[in-house]
């Protein structure tokens, strides 16, 4: 069982680094057969271990006007459902990219994407703040992305290795 879990983790780690790695190559990298890899992937897709395949895009390079904000949300949890009900209410808005329940001085941290600062401002004042059980919000507009999902977007380090060494 442990070996099986290790094998599956190995395949998932490769896909997490590059979702476009074809099963044939994963098979070579792990020593599994192509079919074994395909089965692992199918199973992981089926049980939602693999949630989705997506691409990290640096939209700033496209001159895109996208604006992102990180919003701290203080809420009042409800009996029986805790924070889940309000979290669901919030994540259902399409402009909300992520929602995390966090420890500390506020409860939920959410990421919201819009075309302009005004658009996000309207969302916060009209949609978010007006929800029942929201006690308050603090909005931080994102100025620059340095690293996303483990990837440095503008690497500052160069490869300075010698071309040949013993």
């Amino acid at each position, binding site marked *: 069982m442990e070996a099986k879990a290790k094998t599956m983790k*190995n395949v998932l*780690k*490769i896909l997490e680094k590059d979702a476009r790695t074809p099963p044939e*190559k994963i098979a*070579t*990298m*792990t*020593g599994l057969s192509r079919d074994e890899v395909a089965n692992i992937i199918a199973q992981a897709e089926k049980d939602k271990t693999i949630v989705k395949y997506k691409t990290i895009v640096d939209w700033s390079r496209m001159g895109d006007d996208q604006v992102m904000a990180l919003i701290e949300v203080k809420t009042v949890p409800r009996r029986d459902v805790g924070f889940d009900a309000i979290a669901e209410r919030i994540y259902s808005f399409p402009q909300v990219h992520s929602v995390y329940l966090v420890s500390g001085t506020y409860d939920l941290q959410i990421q919201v994407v819009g075309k302009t600062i005004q658009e996000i401002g309207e969302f916060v004042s009209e949609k978010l703040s007006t929800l029942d059980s929201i006690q308050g919000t603090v909005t931080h507009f994102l100025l620059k992305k340095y690293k996303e999902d483990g990837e440095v977007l503008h690497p500052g*380090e160069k*490869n300075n*290795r*010698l*071309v*040949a*060494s*013993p």
Partner: protein
Amino acid sequence: MVISSKQNKIHKNHASQRVRQISPSGIRKYFDLISPDVISLGIGEPDFTTPWNIREAAIYSLEKGFTMYTSNYGIPELREEVSRELERLYGLRYDPKTELIITVGVSEGVDLVMRAIIDPGDEVIMTDPCYVAYQPAVTLSGGIPVLVPTDQEHEFTLPASEVEKRINSNTRALLIGYPSNPTGAVMTREGLLQLADVARRNDLLVVSDEIYNRLVYGVEYTCFAALPGMKERTILLGGFSKSYAMTGWRVGFAAAPAGIIENMMKIHQYTTMCAPIMGQMAAVEALKHGEDSVQEMVESYDWRRRVMLKGLRDIGLTCFEPRGAFYCFPSIKKTGLTSEEFSERLLKEEQVLVIHGSTFGKCGEGHVRCCYATSMPNIEKALERMGRFVSRLI
């Protein structure tokens, strides 16, 4: 700098007999042939940068003013951490006060140990091919390297019977380096036990360069000093360059019986004094909090190892499966070229740099060293170019 023929003559006349016996490394010649399009599989170091927590520890040590000499043996904290690590990995117990010394990489360790144990005319047995520094270290100590041929058929392991044939009254030590640079070979525990038996019966010291100890794939790793009765006659050389991607920091260690460490220290104190303190501070952090990084790097090397091995075989080269370090050592004999011709032409015609096997010894002829510590796209592109090159020859 241009050196006139007159100057050259003066330099030659003043060269010691010992230094005349050694040649510059065959790898140097490639430096002048490199263009920007070249994909290098010729680098003998990790493609990772030292993990940030290790770099940060060194920065912090500088901020705190740690810029001075250290004890000749190395800072006590690092020796204690090395001792703990050897116990954790192999159950070996070395006294950090008397049985460990911190060196300027394993390279200094090899030099120190040879100078500490060799008298003129003493013989040291080693494999052919082997790491480029082994023979010069013995020669510069006044000793004589005695080479045992190894080959692909036996996965470049060292047969005890062949070692035994070469033992005489001048034989002082056996020098082994597994996992191997350049071949990637790893010795099995059984094979090492046979060597241990030879060492015991013939009262030999064994110098074991285990710089690649953590880079082993799918097989059990055996530390030579951990074999029964071997700690007392083994000089274990290890370091941080490969496991923690710390090549430029120049930190290694030697673990051995106190008398040998004492003699190595005598040379070390008059030649280098100590390994750089910031490197030693970084190494402490590596041992304390570097295990996750090691595991991550090993996993990544293993993926690339498999891709390179399959790629080399797919283009028609025979290659045994390397189980350690980060090298494949395929045979290029069927191309009809010498390893040097192969490397030079591959570089000129397809802009891929591999290291000719003969630079690691006569028995490396017919092979080239391909390092897979480079990015996956580079490996794939290099294999494609090598495939094109080889298909024109076979």
